[in-house]
């Protein structure tokens, strides 16, 4: 079934038919002892899947709760289209939340949990809508069960159905998959993404799991310390991070100290421990002085000393393999470089060459278009130690 197609016959309790953009302007939340969100500006286009990604304590959940109306901002505004909802009561906002631990009503069965929002608004043909929603999340058979009798994955789907049935203009998801095991989490990610595409509503998803954000979201905003570090599509963020935090938090990065020697045209040349490397100008976020040269581990190629490497430019001899982890689809190497830094290199196990051993002498290389350059004043370890 398609919910989007059903929109025409829903009760006319929505203020307007057309979906509206969510806009946060200079949103700030101060608690007694710290500032959770600092002057945040954010625009979420209607109908997109938006992820707020960041480590715990970065302010992402507080931001979400302000949009839901469960927390009031210290300053700043929240708009839906042209309507300001900053101070609107939570029960008057066309916004629903899938809570972190689901917050299902334990005294009501699945059917009544899902019907809760519709009943409060006095909607007609509640039974039919609940039935359709339970079909969408494949829980028809569990309709009479109470939440405590259900598994985590089932509870998660009830929570999703309970929020979704109200067809909110914005659906907020607060770490909705955090309590599930890895396999189920992957399955639910695809499921939620499918449902979002099907219903076409705006989803704002809060998570600390970068893989989850990349799998599901059209746009990701990486949050750190109450501010947004960078915003863009998953590929954009991954391929061209602007800060060391994003480079380390979203996947992993090799960051190598270097000094800009020239910046002309569309190439920035950098001296890296005696080797000249070039970086495309649109990926160089400093134009002079010192910087961090960044390269993703899977972009780093290694080959036994003297053998040809399939990459033009940036050829770095003199590496020694110090660690080898075989993880099935790929092998992860640590390579000690002549200047005393270990670089990570991930290699697909294509079988074209034998897997290298610890102590092997290797040459290292990467294609210049994959490197990026970040300001040297940023902490090289920012975001690196904050994995799950």
């Amino acid at each position: 079934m398609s919910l989007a197609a059903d929109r025409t016959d829903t009760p006319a309790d929505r203020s307007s038919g057309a979906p509206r953009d969510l806009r946060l302007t200079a949103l700030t939340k101060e608690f007694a002892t710290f500032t959770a969100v600092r002057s945040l500006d954010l625009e979420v286009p209607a109908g997109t899947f938006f992820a707020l990604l960041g480590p715990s304590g970065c302010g992402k959940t507080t931001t979400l709760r302000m949009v839901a109306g469960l927390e009031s901002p210290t300053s700043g505004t929240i708009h839906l289209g042209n309507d300001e909802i900053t101070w609107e009561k939570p029960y008057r906002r066309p916004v629903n939340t899938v809570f972190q631990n689901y917050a299902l009503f334990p005294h009501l069965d699945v059917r009544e949990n899902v019907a809760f929002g519709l009943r409060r608004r006095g909607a007609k043909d509640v039974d039919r809508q609940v039935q359709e929603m339970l079909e969408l999340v494949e829980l028809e058979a569990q309709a009479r069960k109470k939440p405590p009798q259900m598994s985590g994955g089932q509870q998660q789907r009830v929570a999703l159905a309970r929020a979704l049935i109200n067809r909110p203009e914005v659906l907020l998801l607060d770490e909705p998959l955090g309590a599930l095991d890895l396999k189920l989490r992957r399955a639910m990610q695809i499921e939620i993404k499918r449902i979002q595409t099907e219903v076409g509503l705006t989803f704002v998803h809060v998570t600390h799991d970068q893989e989850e954000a990349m799998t599901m979201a059209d746009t990701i905003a990486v949050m750190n310390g109450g501010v947004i570090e960078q915003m863009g599509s998953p590929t954009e963020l991954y391929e061209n991070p602007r800060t060391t935090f994003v480079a380390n938090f979203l996947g992993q990065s090799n960051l190598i100290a270097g000094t800009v020697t020239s910046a002309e045209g569309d190439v920035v040349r950098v001296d890296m421990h005696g080797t000249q490397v070039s970086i495309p100008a649109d990926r160089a976020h400093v134009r002079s002085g010192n910087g961090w040269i960044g390269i993703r581990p899977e972009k780093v190629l290694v080959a036994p000393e003297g053998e040809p490497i399939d990459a033009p430019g940036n050829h770095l001899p003199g590496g020694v393999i110090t660690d080898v982890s075989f993880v099935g689809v790929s092998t992860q190497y640590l390579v000690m470089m002549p200047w005393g830094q270990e670089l990570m290199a991930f290699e697909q196990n294509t079988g074209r060459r034998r897997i290298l051993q610890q102590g092997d002498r290797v040459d290292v290389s990467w294609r210049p278009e994959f490197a990026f350059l970040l300001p040297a004043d940023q902490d090289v370890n920012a975001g690196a130690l904050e994995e799950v």
Partner: protein
Amino acid sequence: MRRGRFTGYWLMLPAALWLGVFFVIPFYSLLATSLYDPEGSVLTGYDVTYHVANFWDAISEHWDELWRSLWYAGLATLICAVLGYLLAYAIAFKAGRWRNFLLVLVIAPFFTSFLVRTLSWKLILADDGFIVDALQTLHLMGDDDRLLATPVAVIAGLVYNFLPFMVLPLYASLEKIDVRLIEAASDLYASPSRGFLKVTLPLSMPGVVAGTLLTFIPAAGDYINAQLLGSTNQRMVGNVIQDLFTDTGDYAAAGALSVTLMAIIVALVVIYIRKAGTEELL
């Protein structure tokens, strides 16, 4: 697991023995007393003659007191429920760091004896006490009206004495409620009052049931409040039983009335629990 098989029974044994000696045997004796020959006396001795008519005699003769006990206790329970719910709700959700202090205050009256506390109410409600004076000054009471020796005094005494038994179970069940459920209700278009009716109240029902039982059962059998704060017009069944046992020496009637009161309370409790449907709640 052979060793653990009987552990549960061993652990139950002390309490079972205690109840056997101090509840089952006395209850049997009470039941036997209620069936004594009504002609017996301390001098001539008593015989168990299975004189069931004791019950009809006692009930018909003391119907007023029985009925009064039930409705005084019922009204006191209702007032306790309203006052207690407000108090427990405030302590559980609004008290913040004062929570423990307020709980201690709820329990504080237990540090003084029941009798002393009830006697002090006699002073509070006295004809020249400040409450009566104030109400008379405001012309809410006539000059000759009194509070003592009225149903108001007895019910007020019952409410005061049993309020903590209402507050504590209510607090325990309110405090357990996950505030995120209340947030979820408000996220799902429930105004604060709807959210209370649909989420908070149903989830606190175990506390409501426990509190009302802990209040109603002892209140229905209470005789101290009626004796100290009431007059002969506010006599409750407890006063009658006490008189029959200690003054009149009519053991058969006293026993029959005690058993009747117990039977009525058990019946009411069963109906109440069925109606409240607390087994549904986790």
